[in-house]
């Protein structure tokens, strides 16, 4: 198996990351822009995500119907994602067809049309996407918690945006956003798979190097002030099931504390997978919170999540409360577990076990070329690819003392928002 990785900077500022993997006749190519929902001001929430949708609506060279058919005809998979810190587009294609993906992305870096009619029809599609999410109690609760956690930092709104903004933003708002942030010097291209680096680099230069760079506005810099007290909130809605969402302000991905908090998450709620594609997960039935909540019949499930973000975001635990129990009981048991991990030094063996789990998940994700190319670029959005390459090493360096310090620093009640979804259809239990 040949695996090599190289990094290049084109004259226009476009950063290129290439990794040869010759295990399957596939290539996955990603273009990343340093723009996301955290760059949106009030009134324009959801702009980055809607703009991403418009990128599928065609250019003079590749009208929308042609674009879509061309990729599918070649047996490719393509899609795009918008997150807080970034927007990305990818194509995974049979190795001999990837040129199409490279050409599409070079073209739509500058030539997308943003046709007025297409904007109108996509407005209702995006609203429909939001309405679909609103059907889910978990979305409603998550949105309320995120909102309460960030008063100042633009991580306060969901990527999809708020309904009034989705109704009021114009074609020019979308197009301005596109022209401002979609430039080679604000982008990274990451390609992994079955190619020769010299050939791939030459082709990327040919397609992308003539695209001129532009002035990129500085990102909104509005750090969230330190939390100074617990927030509690409730969301009411249909259903019979009660959910608890406990969210702590957490370190950014490039903060050394990110790694102890990752291990904490693994001990508390089970190992989380870094794999965006492929791999699957590991169950969490021996995690501390599963034992104290699910095995004690206070909850029917529990899971934890920490996101790799450029600025400090949240570490969240979601608890689906047992139908015969009250959320307060589950929260009290949760708090006991946090106290336990804070007061009792964690055995080294438990940390070693978390590292083995992370190693296994890492191995599972390595099978998937799309996942490899994803990480090659994604890590650049908050740190550098080295962050991913040394991830297991940094986890392995976490000590019991680091864990204790991280619990004391981050998992304090003053540093959290506790959200409860209260179902309005629940029968009163005897």
């Amino acid at each position, binding site marked *: 198996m040949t695996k090599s990785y190289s990094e290049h900077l084109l004259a226009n500022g476009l950063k290129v990351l290439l990794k040869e993997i010759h295990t399957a006749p596939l290539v996955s190519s990603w273009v990343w822009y340093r723009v996301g929902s955290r760059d949106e001001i009030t009134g324009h929430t959801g702009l980055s995500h809607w703009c991403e949708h418009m990128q599928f609506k065609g250019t003079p060279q590749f009208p929308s119907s042609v674009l879509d058919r061309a990729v599918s*005809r070649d*047996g490719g998979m393509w899609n795009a994602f918008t997150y807080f810190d970034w927007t990305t587009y990818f194509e995974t294609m049979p190795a001999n067809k990837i040129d199409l993906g490279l050409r599409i992305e070079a073209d739509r870096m500058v030539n997308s049309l943003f046709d007025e009619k297409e904007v109108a029809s996509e407005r209702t599609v995006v609203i429909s996407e939001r309405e679909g999410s609103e*059907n889910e109690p978990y979305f409603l609760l998550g949105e309320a918690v995120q909102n309460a956690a960030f008063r100042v930092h633009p991580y306060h709104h969901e990527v999809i945006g708020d309904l009034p903004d989705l109704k009021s933003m114009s074609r020019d708002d979308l197009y301005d956003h596109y022209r401002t942030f979609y430039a080679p010097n604000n982008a990274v291209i990451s390609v992994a798979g079955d190619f020769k680096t010299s050939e791939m680099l030459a082709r990327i230069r040919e397609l992308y190097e003539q695209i001129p760079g532009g002035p990129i506005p500085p990102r909104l810099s509005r750090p969230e002030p330190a939390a100074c007290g617990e927030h509690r909130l409730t969301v009411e809605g249909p259903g019979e099931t009660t959910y608890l969402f406990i969210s702590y302000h957490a370190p950014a991905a490039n903060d050394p504390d990110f790694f102890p908090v990752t291990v904490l998450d693994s001990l508390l709620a089970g190992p989380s997978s870094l794999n965006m594609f492929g791999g699957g997960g590991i169950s969490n039935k021996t995690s501390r919170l599963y034992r104290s909540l699910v095995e004690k019949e206070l909850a029917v499930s529990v899971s934890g999540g920490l996101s790799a973000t450029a600025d400090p975001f949240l570490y969240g635990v979601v608890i689906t409360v*047992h139908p015969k129990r009250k959320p307060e009981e589950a929260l009290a048991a949760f708090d006991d577990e946090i106290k336990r991990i804070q007061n009792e030094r964690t055995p080294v063996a438990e940390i070693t076990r978390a590292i083995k789990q992370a190693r296994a998940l890492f*191995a599972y994700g390595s099978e998937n070329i799309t996942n490899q190319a994803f990480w090659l670029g994604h890590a650049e959005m908050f740190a550098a690819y080295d962050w991913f390459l040394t991830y297991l090493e940094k986890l392995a360096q976490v000590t019991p003392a680091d864990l204790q310090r991280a619990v004391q620093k981050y998992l304090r009640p003053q540093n959290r928002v506790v959200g409860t979804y209260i179902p309005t259809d629940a029968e009163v239990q005897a």
Partner: protein
Amino acid sequence: MKSVNQHSLPGPDDITRVVLPNGITVLARTNFNSPSVVIGGYLPCGSLFDPDEKLGLADFTASGLLRGSEKRDFQKIFDDLESAGANLSFSAGGHTAGFTGRCLSEDLPLLFDLLADALRCPVFPGEQVERLRAQFLTGLAIRAQDTAEMASLTFDQIVFKGHPYARPDDGWPETIQAITRDDLADFHRIHYGPRGLVLAIVGTVEPKAIAGQVAKVLGDWTNPSQPELPALPELKPLKNPVTRKVKIPGKSQADLVIGTSGPRRKDPEFMPASLGNSVLGQFGMAGRIGEVVREKSGLAYYASSSLSAGVGPGAWDISAGVNPGNVQKARDLICKEIARFVEKGVTAEELADSQSNFVGRLPLSLESNAGVVNALLNIERFDLGLDYYRRYPGLVRAVTPEDVLATACKYLHPDKLAVAIAGS
């Protein structure tokens, strides 16, 4: 740049297939590029055996297999699995109970041991059964609030009326309440056994040694009481259009499912139906349906068609999530597309696009160990032959627009469609 090598696809020269004396079929393919192994399989213990009043029994039993065995209690099972960073899970569908697992190569003997333990000697401890019951009941309460799931479940009730496929495999709250711990143990004792068990293994494995490794843990398993699966009754096609609405208050979006029943996987119409379905509501951003419902009308974030052919006839349906005020509009557009599809079929160009997509996406669907496990199980379940994926491009390209039209006319009748709607 290279062309796709036909021989990177699984075939008789790189798939190992061995049937053990007790009836277990073992399929394996080596992938030394991967540091891990994926296993998957099934055995004939699905919900077709469930009595109506205890619907969900097969699924409950499958989920209970990992809750404690004669050798390990619940904590020990998951401590062994999770400490190795491995996973293993069971669930049941209509015909079969299935399992899937994954581990680092060095832990494969452990995974086999846990698999054998779960299959052969589960004990269904009472308190674990109650915990599972609470989880199932919560799952059903969440299902009752899910507009997409409720529309799909209601659709099956219309299309498969009088047929076991009308029943949800995960049961109903009252049937889950009616199942006892002894029901699980009895279901396991009677139905679980080596006959009909298929196990596929892909990853860093030595093909010559693999059957022996399986035989070591499952080779002496017997169960003379294993019954044959009950025969499927014939499905009676709908004689009239049927519409049913499920009210779920307080939801921002409604889901609708429109369609009928389609062919079985082994029917000759499967491939033309599958390609026709691609043109109708899959290709690119969801084919013609995506084009009219999403792209042109902006009515939905998702709108597509699906064909779920299995051992028996599957559903052939179109689903979309729309604002409650747009249900009628979306429904009219979808029905119009179905009518056009049945009347005029597909153009040669549309068909060629989908054929090219079916062949071109093979390397992507087979790049991972899990993808190859699925392919091997597919070959075995539907008796497709070990050379199926090598013959596949030819099978796809042999389909003509006339075949698609004839298939569409046979199954889709625009005046006899089932329509299910769930939402506020």
